[in-house]
């Protein structure tokens, strides 16, 4: 079953007539949209519409160049005028009389707009549907995430190559972005980080000061490549020839536990875990791993931190972000 068929099937099983989606990862999931990447959160707005009855996806975009294969009559154009947006969405067959509409965010202003688009509709969370959708093994994910992993890895190598005394986190971030671009990738999962591993700090927002000789530093690289993400992190000490640090004490145990059937909650006792795919694919504690899924796992102790993306199999996991 294709991804959109699986999505429509889940909509049917949950009695959802229409989905109004604002999150880019969700639009990527249903239509391979590649609209302009922007950093950070953005206010909810119905920027992608899925209608169960017509089996159609409609996209807020001025051109099909950002969603190849989408019929152009399913595009609705950018507008600043809520009345224009409401009219465009009401004109989509199956929207205005929808009884149950799933959304992936909301605001007081958007609520007023949605009330005019689908006046009778009960609103429900689209999050559960996407969690179920992402849990279905997807051959495109199995090839897409490793492609992103190659790029993320190249970014990390570029940072390692210049992890010298006096370098700044900003310089290393720039090198990582440049390495991504040499692979044709200009969008990150997150901007690269080189941050000291210390108590009380997150290791995500490095200070401005230059790095010092022998300082222990976490390097993080994450790429978003053709709509798929992969990321990794390693710990090094700063030197003319940077020295890789051993894995955290719980790493091999956590890695070994990443097999089909393991509950995510059990892994979380050892570190951080989430799905890697169209961005972060959130997993609940009781979610059991399935072969073919990609798990981002991260483990740290007082001295060192490591993060990789692994492919879940029936036996040992395969590290897709390894060298």
């Amino acid at each position, binding site marked *: 079953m294709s991804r959109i068929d699986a999505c429509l099937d889940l909509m049917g099983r949950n009695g959802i007539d229409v989905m109004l989606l604002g999150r880019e990862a969700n639009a990527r999931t249903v239509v391979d949209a590649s609209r302009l990447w*922007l950093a950070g959160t953005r206010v909810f707005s119905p920027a992608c519409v899925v209608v169960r009855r017509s089996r159609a996806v409609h996209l807020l975009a001025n051109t099909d160049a950002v969603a190849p294969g989408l019929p152009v009559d399913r595009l609705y*154009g950018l507008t600043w005028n809520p009345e224009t947006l409401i009219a465009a969405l009401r004109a989509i067959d199956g929207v205005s009389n929808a009884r149950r509409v799933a959304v992936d965010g909301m605001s007081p202003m958007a609520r007023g707009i949605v009330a005019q688009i689908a006046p009778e509709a009960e609103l429900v969370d689209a999050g559960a549907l996407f969690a179920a959708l992402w849990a279905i093994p997807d051959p495109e994910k199995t090839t897409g995430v490793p492609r992103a992993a190659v790029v993320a890895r190249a970014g990390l190598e570029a940072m390692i190559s210049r992890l010298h005394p006096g370098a700044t986190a*900003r310089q290393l971030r*720039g090198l990582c*972005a440049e390495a*991504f671009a040499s692979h044709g990738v*200009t969008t990150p999962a*997150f901007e690269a980080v080189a941050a000291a591993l210390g108590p009380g700090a997150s290791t995500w927002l490095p200070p401005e000061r230059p790095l010092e000789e022998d300082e222990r530093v976490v390097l993080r690289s994450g790429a978003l490549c053709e709509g798929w993400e992969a990321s990794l992190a390693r710990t090094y000490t700063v030197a003319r020839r940077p020295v890789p640090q051993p894995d955290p004490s719980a790493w091999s145990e956590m890695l070994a536990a990443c097999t089909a059937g393991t509950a995510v909650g059990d892994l979380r006792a050892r570190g951080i875990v989430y799905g890697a795919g169209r961005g972060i694919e*959130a997993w609940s504690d009781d979610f059991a791993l399935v072969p073919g899924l990609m798990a981002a796992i991260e483990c740290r102790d007082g001295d060192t931190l490591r993060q990789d993306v692994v492919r879940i199999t029936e036996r040992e996991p395969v590290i897709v972000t390894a060298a």
Partner: protein
Amino acid sequence: MTEPICALDLERMRRDRLSKLQDAMEAGGIDTLLLCGQQNVAYASGARTPAADHVRASWWRAVVLLERGSEWPHVFTDFPEGVPAELPDEFLHRAVEIETPAGAEELARRAGANRLALDDAPFPLWAALGSRDLADASAVLGPAKITKTPDELECIRRAQSINERAMRTVRPLAVPGRPATDLSGAFLRAVAEIGATANTVDPVFQVMPRSVAAGPFSVSDEPVFPIPTARRELQTGDVMWIDTGINLHGYASDFGATWIVGREPDAAERDQFARWQATVDRALQHVQPGATANDLVEAARVDDDHRPWLSYFYLAHGIGTDSAEMPFVGTDLGDAFDAALILQPGMVLVFEPVVWDDGHAGHRSEEIVAVTDDGYVWLSERAELDGGDLR
């Protein structure tokens, strides 16, 4: 070179912003302001989170609760090192996971039962707030953000300056045979090295078609812009539209330009640029307190009825913690909207008209000014055809 607006004082800037928010809450009868959008969180608290893709940023978001009359906002974050040092400890809290029902309910409880304004919520938080009568936070944020303090203007000017300096590194690389994505890489490296806090948008280096018909399908029969940069080798004669933006101390830049690849601009391209600049200059003659957005639209109009910009964007937009925010000038909100928008000192205008000669492509650049007591001051360098002396 642009001139500094003031000696930048970030703590004063944050204090001034809070004061404006408090005034707006008082005026709007809002007791509690609940902010989940990261640009709004940054505005109210100065708190920073890592620059990340949309959904990751949603999971990582910091949240602000500001109570009417409080000197400080409550900040909930996983990134305490991103919070300004002056925030008292009792206002700094561990993150609440508002993407989950448990975290959302915890925050809803913290928000109290008074009159609440909210900017944006993941659905679990929306559900946890239930049937409460919520005001849209724009009622508070709009009046506060629409004019900038001198410190905010200086942040925008410096952000723009970093963006412009980075383009000096990039322009010489725009040569035949070079993949356009290499320019993005060089730009991202340069802005990081020069001092950007973060990058905010995938840099756009888009080769434009000669005519709309020769380009990708367009819902509005106008040129389609922006489209994410393709890994395509540049060719002699390509007309490339550029659009980039970075973040400095929470403030956005916005750089737009038109470059010609591998040859000097021809007479038609020079004429397009002259007409582009004349459009901005006509509008600038009206930039002063008391003028309306409609005055700028009327001045920029050509031959009575042609609006030389993309109908799905604007003649000009504001910029601040968001890369495009109020005031909007010449949008599809219509003449009445423009007529009601009155320029005030501290408003910022990013002009981005478009001159398009179907069959001969066109020109698009961007220029930024701030409204002063008696006119305007430049926050960007003036646009130059083909990068001017950057080549």
